[in-house]
């Protein structure tokens, strides 16, 4: 009846041999570095540095400081760290209370808990009054093999629905650091996805710098335009390099700010040169970047060939992350093969 149920409950039969082993603990999964240089705990270090300059910065966690890299801040500024316990409603409400008293709270937990469990508290205590609470969440989308309880595959869809909230999905370590500074400087509430642990550092070599609300071209290309967000921009850059070897020229437009969407840049790029537009995100195909871009195109009357790379509208399997990224289409190989197929259509 439900196809995946039979496999989950049925007799164990390996899909293929050998399966990937869990390279790291699923709970503290770092993104596969893929041979790139990495930076350790970019969010934690950026917030620590920021707090040295700004007395109004405080940090809160709901029993996940070690798993959001907030422990770096907590160790450096113990008097400005608030452990709220395993209580996400309280985490958001208390952050609102601290913001009311003039502080700029960074509230951290996992993306599933902020988006699914604490929505009403973020909505009414924080967003309705545009309080400057910065909600920074680890394990966005499919960044753990732990299963649906920890895979926030629909957090962008949930958070995009909230008025006043800025929604950001940074790509790499340097962008996380730059965005941490930028969201502290912007007045309203923000939801930002985090990569934690050893985070690849990619965009610096392209001379990229994060600007809140701006989509930016990372590379140009004439056949395909990837419009990607989060770590999927790493993947689309790799896919572009692979496709170039087959004489397919791909551009990459990186869109770290999901809301408000940089509609002007997205529309201008999407309508430039008759390229196949392919959105790519570490998120369900429902309600994330892809649908935001599609809606912007439709509203403007633009008609361009459009394809979407994202997670299926399903509860995903548990397993090793590389396996799951292959299975659900986020891996470079999977992107390359689908783009080739689409170009042949």
């Amino acid at each position, binding site marked *: 009846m439900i196809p995946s149920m039979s496999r989950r409950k049925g007799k164990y039969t390996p899909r293929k041999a050998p399966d990937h082993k869990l390279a790291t603990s699923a709970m503290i999964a770092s993104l596969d570095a893929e041979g790139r240089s990495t930076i350790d705990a970019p969010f934690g270090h950026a917030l620590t540095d920021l707090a040295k300059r700004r007395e109004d910065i*405080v940090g809160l966690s709901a029993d996940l400081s070690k798993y959001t890299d907030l422990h770096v801040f907590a160790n450096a500024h113990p008097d400005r760290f*608030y452990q*709220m*316990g395993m*209580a996400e*409603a*309280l985490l*958001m*409400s*208390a*952050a*609102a*209370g*601290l*913001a*009311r*008293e*003039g*502080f700029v*709270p960074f509230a951290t937990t996992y993306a599933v808990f902020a988006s699914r469990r604490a929505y*009403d*508290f973020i*909505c*009414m*205590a924080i967003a*309705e*009054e545009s309080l400057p609470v910065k909600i920074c969440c680890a394990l966005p989308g499919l960044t753990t093999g732990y299963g649906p309880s920890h895979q926030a595959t629909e957090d962008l869809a949930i958070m995009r629905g909230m008025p006043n909230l800025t929604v950001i999905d940074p790509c790499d370590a340097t962008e996380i650091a730059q965005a941490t500074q930028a969201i502290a400087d912007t007045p309203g509430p923000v939801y930002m996805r985090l990569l934690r642990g050893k985070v690849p550092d990619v965009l610096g070599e392209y001379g990229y710098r994060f600007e809140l609300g701006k989509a930016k071209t990372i590379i140009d290309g004439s056949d395909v335009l990837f419009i990607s967000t989060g770590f999927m921009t790493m993947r689309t850059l790799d896919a572009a390099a692979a496709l170039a070897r087959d004489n397919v020229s791909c551009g990459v437009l990186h869109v770290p700010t999901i809301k408000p969407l940089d509609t002007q840049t997205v529309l201008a790029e999407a309508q430039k040169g008759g390229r196949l537009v392919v959105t790519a995100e570490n998120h369900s195909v429902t309600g994330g970047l892809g649908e935001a871009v599609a809606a912007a195109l439709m509203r403007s009357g633009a008609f361009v060939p459009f394809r979407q790379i994202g997670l299926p509208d399903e509860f995903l399997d548990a397993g090793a992350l590389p396996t799951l990224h292959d299975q659900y289409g986020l891996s470079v190989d999977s992107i390359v093969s689908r783009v080739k197929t689409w170009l042949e259509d």
Partner: protein
Amino acid sequence: MSDGIENTGANVSLQRRAWAIRRNALRMGEVQGQGYIGQALGVADVLAVSFFHALRFRPQDPEWDGRDRFYLSIGHYAIALYAALIEAGVLPEDEIETYGMDDSRMPMSGMAAYTPGMEITGGSLGHGLGIAVGAGLGLKRKANPAFVYNMLSDGELGEGSTWEAVMSAVQWELDNLIAIVDFNNQQADGPTRAALATEPGTEAAKWEAFGWFAQEVDGNDLQALVRAFDAARAHPGPVPRVIICNTMMCKGVPFLETRDKTHFIRVEADEWAKALNHLDAEVPL
């Protein structure tokens, strides 16, 4: 009478304040022909003691940083808080005529962005005490000696988030936090005690077990309320404080006191004036 209130008329009795709050609320109800008047009449004595005995605030400067914060998480009690804010001089009396109207600063459910003196947006229940925990932490960070009060309802004790805040307030030793529970034993579908188990023990015993300094009083007894608020503020322990106020809905208007209690008490069109006449027949000094 008060050690803190600034810039309001002195030498007005708490009986008179409570009477004025009830009267203001009834006038607002009359404007709309409806309103949460049962709650407003029931909680009027608690608000009178809050605003005219316990709280420090400046009516002309409702965002003065030295004020005691008053967080109303029960948004539908806005009619009662507006009535108190009018009596306190924070809101002008002539805005009573705008209650619940388009473009009014006094919407039916309390929202911070609309109304001077309405500190938080209530209505989604179970939020206020958690926000108060954050404010309590923030006040301590700033070494600001103000208290933060959160008025919540017995129905809100069913929200799990309230108990997250109850535990955290003890963890952080928030002796600047005073919760006021309006316990009228009435929520939307019927008696609170028939909805979620409040037994065993008294309500105060439950809060004490969580580590709070808890008092349970007759919430329509002004002198008992004064003693409870004084004790809550003066308690030497590094713990949060709660005053559970057992109130009677519709208190002060006998023909409404005896009416079948529901969350939204029905008042006929001609009864608003009748209720006001009853109050005006005996004006406290």
